Each structure stands twice: as structure tokens, then as C-alpha cells.
């Protein structure tokens, strides 16, 4: 038993962190002088594909690197830290689904030549045997060829054109492109239900890992600022009112990180406990992301309310990921209904 990364796993973390530091620094998300905010991350996919990151956890016979959910999870913590476009989730999960039923699609996704958007329900979803109907939000789907749908009951891959009645919306998280659309008895290219295999659990786990990285980055930003910002003649981090807020952020991030690691090891074994532990991870990690995002703004004071520092980005992204496949209320209702895992 060991819940710390191995040397090889740490090398993967360092590689991804190094790549993102060079290619996706948080400053890229500062608005230009017109306040216009595009999405700068589409250019990342081919580069990440070159490094093998997009197919990291896909089995080798499916065209991926064949690493486990543990390594995949570690990379997602880094994606969260850098606030990489959550379109990446569509690519990873879409590649896993397609690798079984549509290898050419999987190859295109892992090669970075085609993007995968995300779909998440706006209300009730009707679903039987791989056919889905309902109203959805599409995230980062504008130039995508495929769309990955996550509901609390299933995970499914579609062609983008399967979604109709599209209308663009501005997102609260303004770096993410958003639209409304619907499916009418849309047939998935590949799908699986929450009760079979680990596809659905993997989605919750990777969302949890992303949320963990986000919570850690929000903490780091708040701590850095509390060390240098002075009031009453000393750094504000010396005041318990601020210090204890930072401590609470550190606790939340640690709780999330531990459960995410634990769940990743369980999932890597294809264990039946994967659903339980991934849900637990999602609940504590999204909680940490929401709390740390909000607290980070308060620690910054007025500057935290502006678009000139990164603090606001964390809370907005946290709200967005909360809703992917069902928000905390939905996840908790699922979790309290699940059988105990002791």
C-alpha cells in the first residue's frame, strides 16, 4: 500500500506541468484591452497529442499509451491547475469510448486532429439503449467533430451534428464557449451506463481530479498574495483572519487530493468499488473547488473582484464543472443511494 506517486508517475506529472507552464500559463486567460475573451486552448490539442497526453489512459490495443487511471488522474490535476479548457475531458472520455467501438474516431481524437465538445443536461433526459433525448448545454463544441454527453446515468459519444436547435449563449465562465441544443432520439456512437464498467466512474474521477488541481491553484494564488500584500504595516497573511482562511483552503485541497488518489487506484483495478469512490472524490473535490475559488477572491480583496488577477477564474470554472453530468445535489442524491463500501 502506498498512496504517493512513484518516481515514474512523478516524471509524468513533471512533464505535463512543464508543458503547461510553457504553453498554457494562467496569464493567457487575462482579457485583452477590449475585454474580449476567446478560447486560446484549441491550439493545445495537437501538441498534447504529440506528447501522448490525450490517449494516456487508453489501452495500447486501442491506440493509447496504456497507462492507468492513476497516471490519467495525475495529469488531470495538472489540467485543473492550469485551467486547461474542459474540452480536454471530451477528448479523454471520448477516446476511451471510441477505442472500443470506433477505432478510427479514437485515433483522430488522440491524434489531436479533431476536438470533442461536452454535453450536459439542462433538465430531464430520456434514454433507452443508447438513444437519448433532451435539452443540453454544449461546451467547447463550436469546432468539434464529436460531442461527449455525460448524465448522472450514462456516458455517450455523439457526432456534433446529432444535436439540433442550436443557439449560442455567453458563458459565466467566459473562456468556455457555450450553446444550447437538443437531441431527439439521438443514437450514440458508443455509450455505457453508470451501472456497467468504469467509463462513467472515470468521468467523475477526472472531473474530481480537475477540481482538485483547480482548488490547489486557487490556494496557491491566495497564499502568494497573502505573503506580499501589506496592510497595517505587515503582510495580510500574518493575520489569523486571513491565515485561517488559507488553512481551510489547504485542508479542502488535501482532502480532495487524497480521495482522488485513492479512487484512482481503485478505478485502475476495474474494481466494483470504482463508482462509490469516484463519486466520493467528485463530491469532496468539487466542494473544494467551489470553496477555494470563492475564498481566494475574498483573500485578494478588491483586486480579486477584478479581471486583472486570476482569482475570479477559479470560481467560475468550478461552477461550470459542478454542472457537468449533474451538480452536487444530483451527485449527492446518487451517492446516498449507493451501497456502502467498507
Amino acid at each position, binding site marked *: 500500500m502506498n498512496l*504517493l506517486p512513484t518516481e515514474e508517475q512523478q516524471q509524468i506529472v513533471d512533464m505535463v506541468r512543464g508543458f503547461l507552464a510553457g504553453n498554457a500559463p494562467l496569464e493567457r486567460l487575462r482579457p485583452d484591452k477590449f475585454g474580449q475573451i476567446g478560447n486560446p486552448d484549441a491550439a493545445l490539442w495537437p501538441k498534447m497529442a504529440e506528447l501522448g497526453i490525450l490517449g494516456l489512459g487508453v489501452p495500447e490495443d486501442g491506440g493509447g499509451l496504456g497507462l492507468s487511471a492513476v497516471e490519467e488522474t495525475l495529469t488531470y490535476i495538472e489540467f485543473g491547475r492550469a485551467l486547461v479548457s474542459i474540452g480536454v475531458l471530451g477528448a479523454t472520455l471520448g477516446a476511451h469510448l471510441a477505442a472500443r467501438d470506433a477505432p478510427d474516431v479514437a485515433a483522430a481524437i488522440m491524434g489531436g486532429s479533431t476536438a470533442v465538445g461536452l454535453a450536459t443536461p439542462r433538465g430531464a433526459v430520456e434514454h433507452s439503449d443508447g438513444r437519448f433525448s433532451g435539452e443540453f448545454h454544449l461546451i467547447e463544441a463550436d469546432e468539434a467533430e464529436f460531442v461527449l454527453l455525460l448524465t448522472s446515468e450514462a456516458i455517450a459519444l455523439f457526432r456534433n451534428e446529432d444535436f439540433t436547435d442550436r443557439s449560442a449563449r455567453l458563458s459565466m465562465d467566459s473562456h468556455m464557449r457555450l450553446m444550447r441544443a437538443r437531441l431527439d432520439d439521438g443514437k450514440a456512437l458508443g455509450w455505457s451506463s453508470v451501472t456497467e464498467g468504469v467509463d462513467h466512474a472515470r468521468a467523475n474521477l477526472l472531473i474530481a481530479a480537475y477540481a482538485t488541481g483547480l482548488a490547489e491553484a486557487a490556494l496557491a494564488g491566495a*497564499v502568494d498574495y497573502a*505573503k506580499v500584500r501589506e496592510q497595517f504595516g505587515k503582510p495580510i497573511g500574518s493575520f*489569523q483572519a486571513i*491565515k*485561517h482562511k488559507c488553512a481551510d483552503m489547504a485542508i479542502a485541497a488535501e482532502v480532495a487530493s*487524497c480521495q482522488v488518489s*485513492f479512487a484512482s487506484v481503485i478505478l485502475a483495478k476495474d474494481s466494483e468499488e470504482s463508482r462509490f469512490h469516484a463519486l466520493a472524490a467528485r463530491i469532496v473535490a468539487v466542494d473544494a473547488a467551489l470553496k477555494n475559488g470563492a475564498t481566494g477572491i475574498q483573500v485578494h480583496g478588491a483586486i480579486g473582484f477584478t479581471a486583472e488577477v486570476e482569482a475570479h477564474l477559479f470560481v467560475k470554472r468550478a461552477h461550470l464543472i459542478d454542472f457537468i453530468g449533474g451538480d452536487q445535489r444530483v451527485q449527492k442524491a446518487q451517492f446516498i443511494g449507493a451501497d456502502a463500501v*467498507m
Partner: protein
Amino acid sequence: MNLDYTAEDELFRAEAREWLDANVPREVRPPDGPGMRDFDLGWQRKQFEGGWAGVSWPVEYGGRGLSLTHQLIWYEEYAKAGGPNAELLFVGCNHAAPTIMARGSDEQKSYHLPRILSGEVAWCQGFSEPNNGSDLGGLKCRAEIVGDELVVNGSKIWTSSAHLADWQELLVRTDPAAPKHKGISWVICDMQTPGIELRPILIMTAPGHHHFNQVFYTDVRISLSNVVGEVNDGWKVAMSTLGFERGTAGMLENIRYGAVVERLVDMARQRLGTSALENDDIGQRLAQLRAEVTAVRAMTYRIASRAAIAPPGSEASLARAFFSQLQQRIRRIALDIIGPDSIELPDDDPWIRPYLRTYSNTIAAGTSEIQRNIIGERVLGLPR
């Protein structure tokens, strides 16, 4: 990362399970008094005789010299088997013994460690004072060196089970002129020494059990050979104990709480119905608690993984601060599930007294506020 156990680990687990099934006491643990002392020491003796008392203790002190992973396996099986919460043993096994192992003389080790492990003696703690709680380093209980003895005068407070203990780990000020953290000594005090008087303090679970005491020392003479570590180096000696308490010593309690939450889930399902629970406020909160207590187990595993490399440091405060408040929220929700009858205090009550007891969790062994100072300053590097 892995959660794999070796064949040898699994064998150890099977043996532990078998022994616990056969030996965990089935009678109810007396809540206080000599009956509780007999129960706890008797249970410790039984574990010792079975070879389970000191799983990760070094062989030279009577333990089995096994890894922290083995200790964790033992705790998991102990919790599953419903092993008793033998609180009287905590200070001896988890405080005094690790401190004596780390800093004690050969004589201190060979006298005290076997007696603690075999359940012959109970220990209590003498750290807090009426005017020094969180500011422990400012303690004033005075010990003058006279010949080869210390002469102690002063008072200690919040001493759990002082009236049932044979020994005390006592912090005294041996150099009042030195800076406050430099003039303290860590002393082994025999509770039968003339000059020691106790005053019981009722706690908030009253009416009920005698738990706390104030301890008064009037010209209490203790041999200098009972000082652990160097005279005036007691602060550092004490800190090694606290690091331990904030790290690995809490593992059993962490694991035990998973079962408490599952009992609450069962109770809530019975009272509210499984499907109603999903969208009820209680169900939502209980799901949050279930997720968090699941994460506590993961935190425990990570602490054990780190402890295999280095002794627990300040980062242990993360788990400690989190868990103490989580325990309070877990015990609190029991009242909401029980409903109006929760204002009753039955004799065989499994929920209300434990709920009231959790108010001490964020105070004892360093308040939540002190834990947050430690996290802020020593983990995050914020200025003092």
C-alpha cells in the same frame, strides 16, 4: 500508487481478524471509575498476551516490529470487529511510550515501556494549566532542582482520568529565567507521590461521568532520573509527542468513524425511506459526510505512506483539523435523524453523549485555531 497488500500482509490480516473475532470483549465497557480501568487494562493485557498490543512497536520493547501498514491493517480489522474504544490507554500507548522510545534513557525504557504495553499501568497527561491552554509554552508549574530531585509546585488542568492513572507525563518549568520555550522539562510523575491532590471537574455530558480533573502539586518530590530528555529541553520532547498525536495516533479513530456514518445512513433510510432520503436535506448532508469520511480513510492511507518515509510533521495538522470538525458534523446529524426524541438522554444512549463529547474534539490536543496557525505558518509558509 497502489493499494495492494502482499500475501504476508493478507495472512496478517486474516490472523488479526480471527483473533479479534474470538477475543473482542462482548460486555459493555463501564463509562468511568475503577470498572472502566479494569476493563481497559484487562483488554490491553489480553491484546498483549495475544501478541497484538504493539504491532508497530520495536521488538526490543515487546512489540512485533512490523510496519505502519500492518498497524493500519490491525486498526481496520479492530474497527470492523467493533473493538472497544479503550480511551484510558491512549496517553500511555500513544503519547508517553513514543516519547520515551524517542528520548528516554535506557532505564526509563526498560522500566516503563513493558508495563505500558502489557496493560499493567495507566497514564495521564499533565500539560495544560489554568492559565496556559493554547499558549502551552508559557506554562508556569514550577519545579526547583534540589539535590537530585525536582520539587514541583503548581497546578495542571483538564487531566483526563488523573484519578485512575498510575503515571503522568508532566511538563514543568525548571528555568524561569530562560525564554519561555527553553526552560521546560518533561517529567515522569508517579501519581501516588505525596503532595498530589485532585479536584474532579464535571464535563458537559454531566450528569454522568467523572472524566476531567484539576491536579495540584505541593512540594511534590520527583527524582531527576525521571526527566525524559535533558532538563530544560522538555518543549522539544513534548513536540515530538504532539506530532505523533496529530499524525498516526488518530488512525484508529479515523477508521472507526466510517462505520458510524454507515449506521447513520441505515438509521436515516429506516426513518425516512431510501428514495425520500435522496432529495431530503438530511440525505444531502449525509451524502456529504459519507464522502468526507471516505476521504478521511484516504488521508489516513496517505499519512501512513508518508510516515514510511519520515515522521509525521506539520502537514499532519491538515487531517487532524479536518477530522475533528467532521466528527462534530457527523455526530450532529444524528440529532436531526432521531428528531424530537433527541432531547432525551437515555441510559443506554449511543448518540447524544457522543455528540456532546465531540465539542472537545476541536479543543483538545491543540484547538482548531492552533491547528490552523500551524497549517498557515508551517505548511503554507505564511508569516507569523
